[in-house]
């Protein structure tokens, strides 16, 4: 097997599981250490540079990093580090004035390039955040009265206080973005005719799916499309709902609809889904939060009709089903053949999905549309087939989440900057990467290498009764600084990399003997699959790489380290008599628009 090339930034990037899983590749362990050091503003800025909305994301992120977190797999009973809620600790405790002072400087003299951003959600705002400091003139169009997109119209205030959102949206608008709110763009052609040098489409996936079954028209006054209803609640066009509410759907929108209903006067809310509960798409913690508020969930109920009495919605009828899976795992719902179940209600929220819709984009602008009437967009450059027009966020490839929209925004900004400088958008800067030794002395590293046993801390919640009394009262309270510290200490510092130098190794086995999780083996070479069968401990996680040295060791064997459950405790390096192992901090930075980060990947 070929020796590992640790100068390829992607090798150690894979070892920092959370950072790899984060769409924006936020340097998680770096900010977690800063939180432990009570350097909240620094922790905030590390976040802000990557994910732009640390306060918002610290409360609402989909947290793809957490299922990936190494801590969650080092033991059966271990749970991941509360990465998301730690982000909030940084946001809650930062020094606001200092944050403002540390915002990028915006050149007073602009370059002569004008850019239109359509839609004011996280994707567009990220493009603005990256391009404003480079001197571009940026116009932002949105049909809502304020910026933030779905973060404002969809995510309810009891999950995301308006002040937190305003602060983070304003950091960007205050850079001098020319905002045109309450402006629905009904023609891309008109925009292009205004001679913008580039256009970014960040209009999200704004169309909620309807459910066309008998009774839909007659009951329409009390039947609401989930996302439209949530935005009416957010903008205070709707202030109450009936006593009995049915929410159809099992995703996060359904969870927001049912919990909002409880706060708008309903005292009997039921979530009803077609399929088994195990297939509900909502994040587990969102389901937990809804259940904590006493909302029951009913599975395997397929809607048959809206029942109308005296011209008004009176309930819904459902067919009870069971799920069957064929050999390919494809599911079908089989009716139990029972009498339909009648569920009484005053209102229904339909939260069964959203779609993109681009009625405002003319089809003769050289902008190709493909499958499902979606624009053809390059996955890496975010450029459409009209070279001036870029897409990002939910508008690019369908509904995702805030952090994905941010990641798209960064990349689209890189493309726009390259494009407007007459460069090839495919020629992107490699990520910046550095490795720096953390050794301070004997048994001393510049990070806390000890591994604590604490189990994951739970975030406190506002008492349910109190929370329900006020639509805007935040439910989750966040960690206090002490709990934040304790949780931060659970992080294994996966960016403190074990770096091996075969020229120094005398094959004394000290590292093999001390390693708590049996990561290291000295053995004769072989193919990867075969090597995996004869290491110190089973190496069955194929997602995790083997770190392999050359055979330039005294015995001609190779060193193989399975990265899978390395605790980054540094004991191998401490027990090595010759410093053949060293713990080195790996910093990986996604190149941003105009970023002059050195191309370490190529250089080293």
């Amino acid at each position: 097997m070929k020796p590992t090339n640790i100068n390829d930034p992607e090798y150690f990037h894979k070892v920092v599981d959370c950072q790899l899983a984060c769409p924006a590749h936020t340097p998680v362990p770096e900010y977690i250490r800063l939180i432990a050091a009570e350097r909240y503003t620094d922790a905030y800025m590390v976040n802000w540079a990557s994910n732009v909305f640390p306060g918002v994301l610290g409360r609402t992120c989909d947290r793809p990093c957490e299922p990936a977190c190494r801590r969650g797999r080092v033991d059966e009973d271990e749970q991941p580090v509360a990465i998301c809620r730690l982000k909030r600790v940084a946001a809650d405790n930062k020094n606001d004035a200092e944050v403002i002072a540390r915002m990028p400087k915006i050149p007073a003299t602009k370059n002569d390039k004008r850019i239109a951003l359509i839609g004011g959600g996280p994707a567009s705002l990220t493009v603005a955040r990256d391009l404003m400091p480079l001197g571009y003139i940026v116009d932002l169009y949105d049909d809502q009265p304020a910026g933030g997109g779905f973060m404002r119209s969809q995510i309810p205030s009891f999950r995301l206080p308006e002040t937190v959102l305003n602060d983070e949206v304003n950091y960007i608008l205050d850079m001098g973005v020319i905002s045109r709110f309450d402006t629905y763009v009904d023609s891309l052609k008109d925009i292009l005719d205004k001679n913008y040098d580039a256009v970014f489409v960040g209009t999200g996936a704004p169309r909620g799916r309807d459910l066309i079954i008998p009774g839909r028209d007659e009951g329409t006054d009390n039947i609401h499309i989930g996302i439209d209803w949530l935005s009416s609640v957010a903008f205070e066009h709707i202030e109450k709902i009936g006593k009995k509410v049915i929410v159809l759907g099992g995703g996060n929108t359904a969870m927001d609809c049912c919990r909002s209903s409880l706060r708008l006067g309903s005292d009997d809310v039921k979530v009803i889904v077609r399929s088994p509960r195990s297939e509900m798409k909502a994040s587990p913690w969102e389901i937990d939060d809804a259940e904590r508020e006493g909302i029951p969930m009913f599975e395997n109920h397929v809607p048959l009709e809206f029942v109308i009495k005296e011209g008004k919605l009176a309930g819904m009828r459902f067919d009870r089903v069971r799920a069957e899976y064929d050999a390919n795992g494809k599911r079908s719902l089989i009716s139990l053949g029972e009498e339909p179940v009648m569920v009484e209600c005053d209102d229904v929220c339909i939260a069964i999905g959203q779609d993109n819709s681009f009625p405002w984009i003319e089809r003769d602008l050289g902008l190709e549309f493909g499958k499902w009437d979606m624009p053809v967009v390059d996955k890496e450059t975010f450029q459409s087939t009209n070279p001036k027009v870029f897409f990002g966020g939910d508008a690019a490839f369908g509904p995702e989440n805030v952090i994905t929209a941010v990641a798209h925004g960064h990349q689209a900004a890189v493309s726009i900057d390259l494009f407007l400088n007459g460069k090839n958008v495919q020629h992107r800067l490699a990520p910046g990467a550095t490795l720096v030794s953390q050794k301070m002395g004997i048994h001393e590293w510049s990070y806390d290498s000890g591994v604590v046993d604490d189990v994951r801390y739970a975030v406190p919640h506002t008492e349910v009764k109190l929370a329900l009394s006020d639509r805007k009262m935040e439910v989750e309270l966040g960690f206090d600084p002490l709990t934040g510290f304790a949780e931060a200490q659970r992080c294994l510092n996966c960016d403190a990399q074990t770096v091996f130098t075969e020229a120094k190794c005398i094959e004394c086995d000290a590292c093999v003997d001390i390693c708590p999780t049996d990561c290291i083996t000295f053995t004769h070479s072989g193919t990867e699959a075969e090597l995996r069968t004869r290491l110190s401990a089973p190496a069955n996680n194929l997602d995790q790489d083997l770190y392999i040295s050359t055979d330039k060791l005294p015995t001609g064997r190779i060193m193989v380290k399975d990265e899978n459950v390395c605790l980054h405790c540094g004991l191998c390096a401490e027990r090595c008599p010759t410093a053949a192992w060293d713990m080195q901090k790996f910093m990986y930075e996604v190149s941003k628009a105009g970023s002059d980060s050195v191309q370490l990947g190529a250089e080293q």
Partner: protein
Amino acid sequence: MSYLKPSFRHPDLPVNDLGYTKKNYEGAISTLCAGCGHDSISSAITQAIFELSIAPHNIAKMSGIGCSSKTPTYFLGNSHGFNSVHGRMPSVATGANMANRDMIYVGVSGDGDTASIGMGQFTHAVRRNVNMMYIVENNGCYGLTKGQDSATSDVGSKSKKGDPNPFEPIDLASIALQLGATFVARSFSGDKEQLIPLIKAAIAHQGFAFIDVVSPCVTFNNNPGSTKGYEYVRDHLAATGTVDFVPMKDEITTSYEAGTSQEVTLHDGSVVHLHKADSRLDIHSRRSALALIKDYKANDQLLTGLLYMDPDSQELHETIQSSNKPLRALTELDLCPGNKVLTSINASLR
């Protein structure tokens, strides 16, 4: 700072017949110098005992004084242990063994502890065939007292201090053979593939099982000119062959070519199999072992591996026909069997 070893272990660690993982056989974190060969031996002992599925409370670790003798703290943390006076481990181990024959005795000593101050004690434990494993962690120096040459240091070998050793070395494996040891082996701390099966065989052996393990002292005797450093040992290593230890419960599945292998069945039915690298060796012959050690040494090579095994070994308890039960299991009735028994004993003496 991590003086503490994290409590996490590999989540897919194998379990042995008792349902334990290797973690149940670990000891405290070592305080020896980073890279000391002794730590590798501790790890080999841990692994071997784990694989043998011995309940930790059935083991007693015995040692003297020295870096090597400190190591029982760093393995088998759930077992019994006795850290005796310098060189006196053999007599304490003999006493313990006499008192409780049901325990498994793991003796760990150093070349100083055994070949100098403890030489007299050592010889008698060998001679009496005390049922124990006796490992000498042989680094050619007194590590704990800062690296003075020991009695096993080769003539001309230089420690870190730089003066060549003027004295003839004591070869502990040869001495053990001459004194009648019933199991003799030699190994190298850096070769666990060889050491682990040897430890298993030594534990299963009924009688005195001696293993001389060359174990570099990285701090005082791992320099150019030393014959006990990692580099020198690796360059001069030879082996009698590879050893397989097949526990009684397992079936022997490997087939061996005739003439190149030798097999010993132990009292408990387990089998030690030597796949020979040198066909001159007969593991049932002391003479063959002694001769080969000399031959290899003459060629500047260190012969490791299994050297000798007596399958008919009679351990001390059998020789002196002591009680079958550990002393602590003897009741008042066993010890004072009453007038009737006394009368019959007296009658037998008339």
